[in-house]
């Protein structure tokens, strides 16, 4: 159990998340305006989005499909009948004075997502529901001394609100869950999961309790826009709540905002001035009734998802569960890996991608699909190791160049003369030279100083510029020194 230390003992953190994932549709949930990121202010606003008098909503079929896909992707129950409700409140970025959401009867019911934790454990996080709802516009409060400015481009964009059960027990777990969820959404294509662009946002509900005791009062931290901030906000809230309780106080149920610069949360709404949203079914929209055949048809188009891929990588390709986990988490990575593993040894492929390629990509700030080393080129490199043309060390040198220039491995090897020498007579020649040049070391080795073996290997490599097949060097050296 992940427990947090306090002054009076250990505390359990209970976390539930609400994720708002923007549906990857071209137009909005109830209007035909575009959804592109970064457009000129108020250029992607229809009369419906601006809530002009007499305007009416019309539902986007693609958004329905994506919600169903997502539900199926997390093995959740699809509700064949769902209803759109109005959530009524006033704010400048909410033109209608209500948000069209699904309160009473959401389109997706309960599901579960399995999460692998870094320490090797696996945990299950329950999903309570997924529903479709409209996004609000954007307000800017710092562009003018006495006015706030409203941009309605985002207003009406389709969101899937994904609500978890309070099953998460640490900020790390929350982070891993979000990575897994994001991976699934990107696999399905229902959301691009880009938290920086705001297409995936997270609210975290945090409470603490002594293990075994009933749930404590929770606080909600809204609109966290990166996994790192989710973790930081949870950590801060955890400490804040523990301190209050240990000092004898009690936790007030509040809504909070996280300040990324200071790493702290502040209250924006207390329970007293919580809104009464007066949810009621939207009379402009009839209930959404899905046919079982419609759901089956979508199910048939689902791609192989991370959990299945991981299983297959372990069972059929012989990867370690950890490598399988890493490679299956992201769709682009999985596609890359599977292409390479088709023609090259899977374990080597896995190793090279997770250790070498990822390191270079991270340093350069690139995504895998931006890599100059394409799957075919990767295959080329690994083949050269498989047929002993290159040692591991040489291969790294070649890879370094491949990553920069995008050239094929054999082209580089040819040009740089990096071919690993496997010609035994050539190797023998070098070894003989080293033995001749270091008679005292030879004597010492033969009299029992086994550690000197490394010295000889080093000398051989130095003379040969590392181009000799290490295995052969080892074998021949051993023979000649004995």
């Amino acid at each position, binding site marked *: 159990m992940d427990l947090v230390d306090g002054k009076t003992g250990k505390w359990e953190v209970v976390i539930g998340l609400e994720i708002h994932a923007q549906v990857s*549709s071209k137009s909005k949930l109830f209007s035909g305006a575009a959804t592109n990121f970064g457009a000129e*202010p108020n250029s992607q606003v229809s009369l419906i989005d601006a809530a002009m008098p007499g305007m009416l909503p019309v539902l986007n079929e693609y958004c329905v499909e994506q919600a169903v896909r997502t539900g199926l992707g997390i093995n959740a129950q699809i509700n064949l009948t769902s209803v759109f409700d109005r959530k009524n409140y006033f704010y400048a970025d909410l033109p209608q004075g209500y948000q069209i959401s699904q309160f009473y009867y959401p389109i997706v019911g309960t599901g579960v997502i399995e999460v692998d934790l870094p320490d090797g454990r696996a945990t299950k996080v329950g999903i309570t529901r997924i529903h479709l709802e409209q996004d609000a516009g954007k307000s800017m409060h710092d562009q003018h001394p006495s006015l706030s*400015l409203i941009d309605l481009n985002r207003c009406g964009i389709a969101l899937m609100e994904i609500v978890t059960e309070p099953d998460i027990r640490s900020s790390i777990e929350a982070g891993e869950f979000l990575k897994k969820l994001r991976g699934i959404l990107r696999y399905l294509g229902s959301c691009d999961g880009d938290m920086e662009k705001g297409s995936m946002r997270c609210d975290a509900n945090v409470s603490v309790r002594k293990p075994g005791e009933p749930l404590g009062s929770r606080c909600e931290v809204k609109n966290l826009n990166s996994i790192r901030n989710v973790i930081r906000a949870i950590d801060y809230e955890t400490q804040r709540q523990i301190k209050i309780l240990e000092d004898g106080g009690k936790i007030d149920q509040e809504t909070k905002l996280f300040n990324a610069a200071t790493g702290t949360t502040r209250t924006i709404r207390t329970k007293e001035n919580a809104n009464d949203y007066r949810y009621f079914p939207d009379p402009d929209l*009839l209930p959404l009734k899905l046919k079982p055949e419609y759901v089956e048809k979508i199910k048939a188009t689902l791609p192989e998802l991370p959990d299945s891929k991981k299983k297959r990588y372990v069972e059929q390709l012989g990867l370690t569960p950890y490598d399988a986990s890493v490679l299956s988490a992201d769709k682009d990575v999985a596609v890359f890996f599977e292409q390479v593993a088709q023609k090259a040894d899977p374990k080597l492929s896995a190793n090279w991608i997770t250790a070498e390629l990822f390191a270079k990509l991270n340093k350069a700030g690139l995504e895998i699909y931006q890599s100059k080393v394409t799957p075919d080129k990767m295959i080329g490199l690994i083949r050269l190791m498989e047929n002993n043309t290159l040692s591991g060390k040489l291969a790294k040198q070649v890879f370094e160049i491949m990553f920069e220039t995008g050239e094929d491995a054999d082209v580089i090897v040819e040009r740089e003369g990096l071919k690993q020498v496997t010609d035994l007579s050539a190797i023998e020649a070098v070894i003989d030279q080293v033995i001749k040049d270091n008679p005292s070391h030879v004597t010492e080795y033969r009299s029992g100083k086994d550690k000197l073996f490394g010295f000889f290997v080093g000398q051989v490599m130095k003379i040969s510029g590392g181009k000799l097949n290490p295995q052969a060097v080892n074998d021949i050296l051993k023979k000649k020194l004995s």
Partner: protein
Amino acid sequence: MSITKSEVLATARLARLRVSEEKIDGYIAELNKILDVINSLQSVNTEGLAPVININEFALPLRKDEVTDGNLDDIFANAPNALYKHFAVPKVIE
């Protein structure tokens, strides 16, 4: 069930309407008269009945995912205050 002063004020707050002190008693009386009429519904037996959300019961029409709208030059035509291509409202402190 009759409406209390605090309920009137809470309701007005939700509806963003102002009810002045002088008007409040008159308002309570008016609303209570309406509530008297509405309260007659309490005696009706509605066991097992499905509420009417919309009288039509056909399928909810769906729209193709295409960009058919937006880029309206006249979106600000009736705006009381528009600035830098934004709708301007009194500043909000969050």
